[in-house]
């Protein structure tokens, strides 16, 4: 589903944020991407989502090259940044319809999906209010709903659990699993190692822009915990 081959990103001034990263996410997989602050996680996710340009390597999503066919790649992708800023001059329902229009989602399907996810995240009643009046958690939920109604082949999430209440986190994990059962894939970054350990089929650990370890969660963790493995690889233990 997602193929990142020898991807590197150098910022103006010469700082190499990510260096020669290669990893593959297969359909039906939840892939966790962990690393310390500034390791290059967000830079990688933004490049995969087509939000940010990159210097070297190739990224393909469901066969679409992010550089050569960006619109095709974006059509099958949904991206949720760590702190989603949404149009404050719009009402929640207007934003969802705006996104649905950009992705050519038929009226009947969007009505059904907005009702499904809106009710699940307990946001339907607030959809008539301006986004400017939403709390951080409500904005996070709205952004999540806007991602789910696209029925993406690849869902990219940057720190999705930040700002969500335990109930919404639980519901989101359920929908992520549903999405993968339908043949899609999820690629997300997190600092919550317990969640990553329980939720992910595969995990990649990145340090200073370089991939230091990746593989199936069971094999990677072995008899210890993900926290122990992470701290050991980071050199803190």
């Amino acid at each position: 589903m997602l193929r990142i081959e020898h991807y590197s990103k150098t910022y103006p001034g010469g700082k190499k944020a990510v260096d020669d990263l290669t990893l593959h996410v297969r359909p039906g997989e939840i892939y966790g991407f962990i690393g310390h602050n500034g390791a290059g996680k967000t830079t990688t996710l933004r490049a995969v989502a087509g939000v940010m340009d990159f210097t070297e390597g190739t990224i393909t999503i469901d066969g679409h090259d992010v550089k050569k066919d960006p619109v095709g790649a974006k059509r099958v992708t949904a991206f949720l940044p760590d702190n989603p800023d949404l149009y404050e001059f719009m009402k929640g329902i207007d934003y969802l319809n705006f996104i649905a229009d950009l992705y050519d989602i038929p009226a009947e399907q969007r009505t059904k999906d907005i009702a499904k996810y809106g009710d699940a995240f307990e946001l339907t009643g607030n959809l008539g209010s301006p986004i400017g009046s939403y709390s951080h958690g409500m904005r996070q939920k709205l952004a999540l709903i806007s991602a789910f109604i696209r029925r993406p082949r690849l869902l990219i999430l940057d720190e999705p659990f930040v700002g969500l209440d335990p109930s919404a986190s639980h519901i989101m994990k359920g929908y992520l699993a549903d999405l993968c059962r339908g043949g899609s894939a999820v690629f997300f970054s997190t600092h919550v190692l317990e969640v990553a350990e329980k939720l992910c089929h595969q995990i990649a650990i990145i340090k200073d822009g370089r991939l230091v370890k990746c593989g199936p969660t069971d094999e990677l963790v072995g008899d210890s915990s993900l926290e122990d493995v992470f701290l050991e690889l980071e050199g803190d233990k």
Partner: protein
Amino acid sequence: MKKFFALLKVSVKSMLLSSTNSQGGSRKRAATGVGAMVLIAFLGLYMSGFYSSMLMHALAPVHMEVLVFIFMGMGALVGGLLFTAFAVKGVVFGGKDNDLLLSMPVSSTMLMASRVSAIYLENLLFALFVLAPAGAVCTFMTQSGVGHSVLFWVRLAVAVFTLPLLDTALSVLMGALVAFLSARVTRGVLGQNIVMAVYMAAVFWFAFNVNGMIEGLAANAAGVKESLSWAAPMLWMADGIMGDWGLLLAFAACCIVPFALVVFGLGRVYRQAVTAFAARSARNDYKLSAQSASGQKKALLAKEAKRFFGTPMYFWNAGIGLIMLVAMGAAALVMQNDLREFIGLLGGALPVMPMAALAMGFCLCTSAVAAPSISLEGKYLWILREAPVDERSLLWIKTGFELLLSLPCTVIGGVCLIIALQLTAPEGALLIFSMALFAGCHAAFGMLMGLTFPKLDAVNETVVVKQSLAVMLDMFVPMGVLGLCALLYWLGGRMAPALALALPLALLAVFTGVCVLILVKKGPAMLKAL
């Protein structure tokens, strides 16, 4: 005091950086900031100098120069109020760094004072641009010689420094009211639009009647001064500038006391005010019904329209030229007999169609809709970047939105002028065609300026719409093109009548072509690089 100056430095720096672009090195940023300030200063000084000399020309012979300072003082007060009242909502009560600064170990009064002082500095600049030319005019155009004394300039300086205190106090109170209404009233945007419409109507009324008023003033200057007793502080200021130190001190007290009351009064409840104005609670009674679908382009255009009509600051600043264009056409129709009589009196001294084109072009210049649209995306740019829409389409939709607004207004205003001025069919067609071309050139140029001088990190839309370099250039460069067209018309007319129209049209076509070509070739890459 050290803490106060540290806070003031942050507020002033953010205000000064507001007109620079968020890309490029410090030299480029400084240069663009200085350029923007020079443009504002030039415009302020020119307009103030023009009206001051017009007033002084009428009033100096009857020894009522004092009225010039009354009117220019009022102009500075009202103008400053318009400039800053809506900015106060964002700068003083809605700053994005409010949470951070309120958590610091500084008193809320000090924080409030630092924010208000930044507003004061903006008003001070405006007062300087308005009153200094009035002083210069007074120096050169009066026979009494009052302006030749150093003390006259000292008194003028006292007025320049104290008047903005009153302006700032009123701005903060009005801004607090706007912030309160925005937070509490369901139709806050409508309320703000109504307030702005009333203000603009007053400005238009004043502008249309200023000549008649000045003629009347000269005939009954003393009576006019007496009738202005309701604006006593302005009278004291004017009499003070002209030599009465006692009245000048009374005026200074009238400015300092309200300012101090506002700073210390609102400062004591600043934390509560910021909390109350920010607390907009979302309703939870929405019932989901069947939704309808539309295409990508329609959705993007609707989004631009929602932002334009739903943001009073954007609508009134970018849309005022188009409102003026239609209002000018309507006024020409209503007063067509007077207009024709006036043209008849000129006896062909001025070419009617090109003058109409210049007036329409000027209105179009002041409608910077596309120029700030990239900067207004700001923190929301990720939404468009993530969407399956290519950069070229995004640019054409933003440019097209300005044309969707400006072309109908151009046609309506143009047709009204054609009827009112009794232009022939070929002249009328040429007027509409040339102005439609100019509207296209303005939209494309504005888009290019928006891409070249983006301000993606602006703290609020006021900064982008009113103070950004992209908007300034989008207004003044096309005005320069209009000036060049006028020059070419004059030069062409001296060579051959056909050239008089052909040369300006050719210039417009070339300028539009170049802008569109750059936008097509470089625009998508520029947007991608932001």
